[in-house]
């Protein structure tokens, strides 16, 4: 059975990067995954340093162990025409709709309908089978809208099913909701260990649960590592002199200038210590936030901060980290 992984997160938390890394991780071992973009930003193409994605599924990367990642940037207008085609041969009527501005209306003026198309297209990819009735994709990973909008985005078909009470649209909406609410779907919330994103994640989990949608895990991105000897940094300045002296000596030892009082090595101590303290305080703050996330009773995965920014090697590294933290037996 194919799976739908919906990756959401507050803006700036690296949701697209995590979605791409997840698609790479899940493709390992000869699997095939589809990475879906719904917000028209071409973030996936940027990430994989490739030309902008057209509205068609194409292989974008090979993962370790012969896996394949395909990608699709869903274009709402084209998806709508697909969607109409699903029910009717709407050749001429489809063109007429377009002339009338109905397509524009559906995809931009009433963006709720756009969400119907986007979720519908993703579910179609999940359910699609090849000639031998095997799922075409082992997993579909969606780079979804931000946490603040995710519940409404995923729930839009319920709203539609309520509005269109009978007919094919109603049935289609119901079918999509069945996939989204089933164990086939997993919503992953990406966050940073900062107050606002953590708050938004906690709220997002509560909203998803209230709507009966499967919140599956939290991915903490850009984690700072703690510093050896951090306790000394957070300790009150009891032994500042000894510490300064010892550090100056060490710096000098490492070839960073003479150790004498007021020398170059010693002048490094204060700014570097201040930097270290700031870091240690931040790490301490992060512990509290981590505890808050831990209380959500979801698996929490952590990804390190890439000091060089997100580039391709970094992305593959993140995929490895995710892969290593995937629980054995957890369906992909």
């Amino acid at each position: 059975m194919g799976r739908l992984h919906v990756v959401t997160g507050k803006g700036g938390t690296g949701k697209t990067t995590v979605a791409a890394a997840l698609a790479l991780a899940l493709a390992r071992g000869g699997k095939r995954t589809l990475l879906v973009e719904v917000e028209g930003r071409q973030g996936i193409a940027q990430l994989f340093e490739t030309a902008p994605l057209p509205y068609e599924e194409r292989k974008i990367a090979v993962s370790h162990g012969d896996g394949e990642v395909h990608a699709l940037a869903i274009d709402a207008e084209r998806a709508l025409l697909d969607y109409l085609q699903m029910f009717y041969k709407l050749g001429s009527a489809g063109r007429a709709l377009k002339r009338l501005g109905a397509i524009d209306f559906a995809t931009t003026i009433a963006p709720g309908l756009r969400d119907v198309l986007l979720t519908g297209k993703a579910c179609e990819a999940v359910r699609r089978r090849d000639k031998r009735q095997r799922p075409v994709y082992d997993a579909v990973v969606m780079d979804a809208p931000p946490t603040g909008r995710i519940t409404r985005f995923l729930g839009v078909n319920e709203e539609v099913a309520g509005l269109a009470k009978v007919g094919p649209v109603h049935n289609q909406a119901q079918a999509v909701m069945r996939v989204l609410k089933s164990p086939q779907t997993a919503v992953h919330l990406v966050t940073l260990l900062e107050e606002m994103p953590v708050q938004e994640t906690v709220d997002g989990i509560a909203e998803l649960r209230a709507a009966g949608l499967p919140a599956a895990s939290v991915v903490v991105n850009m984690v700072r590592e703690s510093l050896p000897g951090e306790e000394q940094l957070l300790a009150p300045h009891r032994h500042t002199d000894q510490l300064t002296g010892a550090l100056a000596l060490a710096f000098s030892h490492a070839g960073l200038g003479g150790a004498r009082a007021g020398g170059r090595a010693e002048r490094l101590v204060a700014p570097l210590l201040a930097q270290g303290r700031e870091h240690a305080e931040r790490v301490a703050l992060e512990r509290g936030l981590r505890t808050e996330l831990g209380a959500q009773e979801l698996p929490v995965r952590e990804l390190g901060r890439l000091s060089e920014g997100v580039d391709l090697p970094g992305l593959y590294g993140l995929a490895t980290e995710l892969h290593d933290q995937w629980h054995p037996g957890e369906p992909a």
Partner: protein
Amino acid sequence: MSTPPATDVLDVDPLLDDPATRIVVCCGSGGVGKTTTAAALGLRAAERGRRTVVLTIDPARRLAQSMGLTELDNVPREVPGIDTSAGGELHAMMLDMKRTFDEVVEAHADPERARAILENPFYQSLSAGFAGTQEYMAMEKLGQLRAGDEWDLIVVDTPPSRSALDFLDAPKRLGSFLDGKLIRMLMAPARVGGRAGMKVVNLSMAGLSLVTGALDKLLGAGLLRDVQTFVAAMDTMFGGFRARADATYQLLQAPGTAFLVVAAPERDALREAAYFVERLAADRMPLAGLVLNRMHGGAAAGLSAERALAAAETLTAENLEIDGIVDHRPGKSVVRSAPAADAEGREDPEDPEAHKAPQAPVTPEDAARRTGRADSESSGAPEVSMAAEAPGASEDGSPAPDSPADSGPRPSVADAADAPTADAPSADDAVELAAGLLRLHAERMRLLARERRTRDRFTTLHPDVALAEVPALPGDVHDLAGLRTIGERLADQHAEAAPAPHRPAGSR
């Protein structure tokens, strides 16, 4: 590296103080501190003497609380606790989309019609916030606030749109939709879908009928009827809608408006910012400049990342050699860095040349080749989880006699202080700490370099955009004092003395 281009400094104080400035719009992608910037600007303007209102859309809870906002509300509320000695005031509100929409309906339709609209199921879904409604309603509210002429200055935060400029397009799109054929089709009488009338109607009507027939089958008769009822009921309001949409758009182009594009020094955020800048220019919207949040500053900038790393490695090696002690925490490193060697001489990810699109799919070998990290897959990545060594570190047998009987494992500063290690730094500890500090410094220097590269790339491509940088704060902002600090940092652009010729902000 070429020297960064001289960019104009964005001076926010003259902008905020100028009585001609009536609207400041903060736009930018999500997560860059847009709402915080809007709030900080509002507070600063108020404390400098202007009667200011901040219109926020979906602010984070703590930020809303810092301005005394506790719920969605359509009326600006005065923010307590600000310095009013200069004669200003600060009011704030969080946009309530549904109520704004309802108010528009109530204001423009007679009571009976208004009720019909408000009770229509299609309207209820639409107004309750299908994404996109936010943009229309934000612009609507801005128009209302401005029309009241009650405020010296309105600071607007923009919605976290999927496409950053939805809010600009909203009035136009709505306008073109309302003029469109679709509306007329939907308004067509109930013969829609019927076959009987086909012969007498003209060809285009036949086309319409075909379409509505298809829609009807597709949507189910009920929905189309709801939509038609809705459109019919809204009919009388369309003129008003259209006029307001146009007026708001013109308001945004007017000289009293200043756009600030907000970004963080990251590739994606600045790419979005560049898109904004171009789009604002295309729409002849007055751009005041770019606010670059969360720029990191560097202490000991004379010590390069490479030297710091080399020194750290010397220390780690000597630690082993001199003391013969295998390090207490093997495999731990502060920086998940590539070897120092690839800090130089690798492909610059910001380099436009590097963006030549490869036709073939990316492979792990490609990826690895770019930094020579071929082993990133097989060799264990550095340990990620810190949870294991988080709190409780001081529990392991340290008696802590002078601490009151308290509290269980709690990672407090006091605990750490009572731990024996803090009493007198042993030579060993100091060496380890020194190495850690050096690695941290190296990481910071690389971050700085990357942030500057990213910024310079933007300023090279957009040399006319005035720039203000806001240094990163160590913690999160959630009170007025924090907002005030942000405002001060935003206004104080001369500390770093970019000696660029200075043009008045807001001119293009």
